[in-house]
């Protein structure tokens, strides 16, 4: 099914609000894609997923290495990956890069190496085309692998060239699936520009571009500088996606540069550590200077043992409406699965709310002010907590 992407017209700023539509589903950007394992958003059964506040239709990052393991099953199923995963209401993106961790994958001229439960497998462009046609996600990345920022120029050249050839072949195959091109090239600007030029040859056949190979060891400055240059030359109507980068600070910097979609596991990582996100993200709260709340709290902390308040008063998520910090602390302490379930619900909801506010301030042309206030506040809180620790 063909997608459309409409973007708001922001004269002075690169940041924009977009509406990505496919069939009956409509999805607003900037936003982030929920992290999945074996095709399911972590800890979120269908009832829990569909109760999340802030957006009805979600986007999910399906990992190619996960889906690869049951493409034969999907082929027999014949009713599509959405139904198979009980994710009919949502947008499914098939991606190769795992946003939770970066390991440089092997590749050569005609294939990439994919690590699955059963070991490593080589996937050629022909294999990939065949598998994508079976999986039929809403959106798919063209074949490529991310390399580390500090990779040699030789290797970076190779992946740029291979990715360009694979993109041509992938588009020739007419999979009928909305495709994202990739820009590779590591830290080498000339290679990045070559990758971009190759992609532009096919720009009208792509719905978007993945700014690939980030979150692999570069500094924020290095990343922002490079992305700034690349985005300027990409078609405005392309959806810009980045994977493996997703802290609140990074998100604001990248939204400012024009990134629309984030493939990140940041909320899930917080959950794994027993953290609940508590940073303020509403413009009016950021303007209010006197509250000294924390950016996140760790619910393993025994100070929550009798704390009968929710993680955030007024938060619209199921966890905050129904449960207390004392209960979640107890569930962590007793290694109960429900701890992760409740923290996932809160952390994912909190991030959805953060993005909802980002979209609102962009529409109201307040993004620059918002970003400034947000970062000031965050630095101030981080400094305070550091000095408290000492």
């Amino acid at each position: 099914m063909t997608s459309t992407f409409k973007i708001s017209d922001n004269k002075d700023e690169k940041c924009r609000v977009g509406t990505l539509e496919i069939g009956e589903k409509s999805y607003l950007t900037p936003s982030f894609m929920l992290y999945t394992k074996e095709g399911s958003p972590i800890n979120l059964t269908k009832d829990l997923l569909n109760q999340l506040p802030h957006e009805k239709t979600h986007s999910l990052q399906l990992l190619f290495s996960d889906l690869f393991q049951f493409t034969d099953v999907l082929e027999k199923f014949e009713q599509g990956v959405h139904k198979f995963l009980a994710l009919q209401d949502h947008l499914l993106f098939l991606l190769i890069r795992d946003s939770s961790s970066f390991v440089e994958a092997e590749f050569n001229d005609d294939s990439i190496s994919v690590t699955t439960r059963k070991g490593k497998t080589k996937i050629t462009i022909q294999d990939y085309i065949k598998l994508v046609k079976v999986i039929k996600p809403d959106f798919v990345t063209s074949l490529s692998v991310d390399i580390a920022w500090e990779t040699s120029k030789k290797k970076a050249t190779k992946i740029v060239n291979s990715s360009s050839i694979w993109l041509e072949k992938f588009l020739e195959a007419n999979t009928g699936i909305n495709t994202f091109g990739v820009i590779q090239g590591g830290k080498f600007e000339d290679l990045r520009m070559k990758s971009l030029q190759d992609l532009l040859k096919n720009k009208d056949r792509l719905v978007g571009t993945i700014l690939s190979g980030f979150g692999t060891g570069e500094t924020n400055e290095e990343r922002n500088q490079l992305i700034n240059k690349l985005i300027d030359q990409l078609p405005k109507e392309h959806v810009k996606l980045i994977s493996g980068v997703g802290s609140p600070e990074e998100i604001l910097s990248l939204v400012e540069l024009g990134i629309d979609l984030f493939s990140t596991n940041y909320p899930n990582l917080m959950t794994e550590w027993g953290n609940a996100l508590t940073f303020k993200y509403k413009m009016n709260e950021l303007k209010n200077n006197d509250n000294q709340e924390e950016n996140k709290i760790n619910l393993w902390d025994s100070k929550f043992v009798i704390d009968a308040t929710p993680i955030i008063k007024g938060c619209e998520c199921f966890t905050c409406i129904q449960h207390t910090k004392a209960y979640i602390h107890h569930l962590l302490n007793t290694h109960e699965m429900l701890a992760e379930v409740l923290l996932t619900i809160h952390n994912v909801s909190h991030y959805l709310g953060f993005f909802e506010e980002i979209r609102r301030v962009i529409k109201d042309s307040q993004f620059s002010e918002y970003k400034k206030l947000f970062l000031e506040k965050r630095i101030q809180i981080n400094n305070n907590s550091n000095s408290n620790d000492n």
Partner: protein
Amino acid sequence: MTTTTIDQSTTSIKNNNEDKYSKNNSTDINDVYVKTEEDIVISGVKYPTPTGEGVIPPLQFEIIGKWGKARASKLTLPHHVCSTPMFMPVGTQGTVKGLTSQQLVDLNCGVVLGNTYHLGHRPGPEVMDSVGGLHKFMNYPRAMLTDSGGFQMVSLLQLAEITEQGVQFQSPHDGSTMVLTPELSMGIQNSIGADIMMALDDVVSSTTVGPRVEQAMYRTLRWIDRCIKAHKKPETQNIFAIVQGGLDSRLREICMEGLMAREFPGYAIGGLSGGESKDMFWRVVHQCTSKLPENKPRYLMGVGYALDLVVCSALGVDMFDCVFPSRTARFGTALVASGSLNLKSSEYSTDFTPIDSECQCMVCKNYTKAYLHIVAGKEAIGGQLLTYHNIHYQMSLMSQIRQSIIDQTFPNFVKSFINKQYPNNDCPQWALDALKEVNIII
């Protein structure tokens, strides 16, 4: 150290009675129990059911349908009106593993169990008091039941020793000696605040023989009076007494006589489901449900396999609990009318039907066996989904039992249940015998 005094006092008792009573805790079938002066069946103590004008006791039990010994009832507890026979999911540490309290309500659970031993240790009674009890703590609005903690002590702790004082054990955490007394058990359970609390009993394994069984039975009767005395909230919480006596019908009889004289709001059948033969099992249940008062709920502890639920409902049991449905879910097994499916098995890898095509649960309406095969026993979501389905299966089975009792079609239901579970006519003989005893001929 308080424990030193306890040790000395027990030692002195032992010394005084060394000759006559020395074999009373023997588990040798050839030894004979010698009754002691303290072994009293009827003490005159009565359970303090709140009475008076306008006072509503915290438990009301109304039978709304009967077929033979089987009954369908309305059990009104402070937090919920339950329909029995019912299955009570186990939420050991204040959560039925992987499910939210809301999901338990969505599944139409009535009573959920909490474990006193676990909750008494973490978060502990002080936290329970300060957060206002387990209902508030886990935000489960419906009824709850807590066990006494004794069973866990004996089953989990190898170093547990039972004295007249209570269950003495070494804390697995700091090695200190602690004693779970009837008073302490009641204290913790009052803090937890469940609708139903279980009396601390002297638990012996159902395979134990010899004088020890009789000793435990008499001690259970002594401890029950201490439980009654220590109970601080009879207006809002109920104590259920537990019938002990092993597999010895004479001891069960004495125990029931003693407990019934105290007029409890409800009774549990304990000491079963511990490795005894199924033939012995059903006979003990049958004996107990024949004698226990008709107008009080009966709870068969630790029983939850589908066949056991059907047979024991037929024998007149009202309440059941078991960790099996949720535990087996986490290992990848789904419960169905025909028994159970191990979804990890490759035979389901391309099975695109739901676990049970007639099941109305969220899992069966949305997921195929083929997908569950991918996550069963491996991913957290697999455990969450299968637990959800299995609890739904238990609830649905009980509601069918209940409805068929009310509709006077119970024997037909039992027959169709057994035909589905045992299509090759290989239903275990004990079940057929038990059902025959209550005039259900398969």
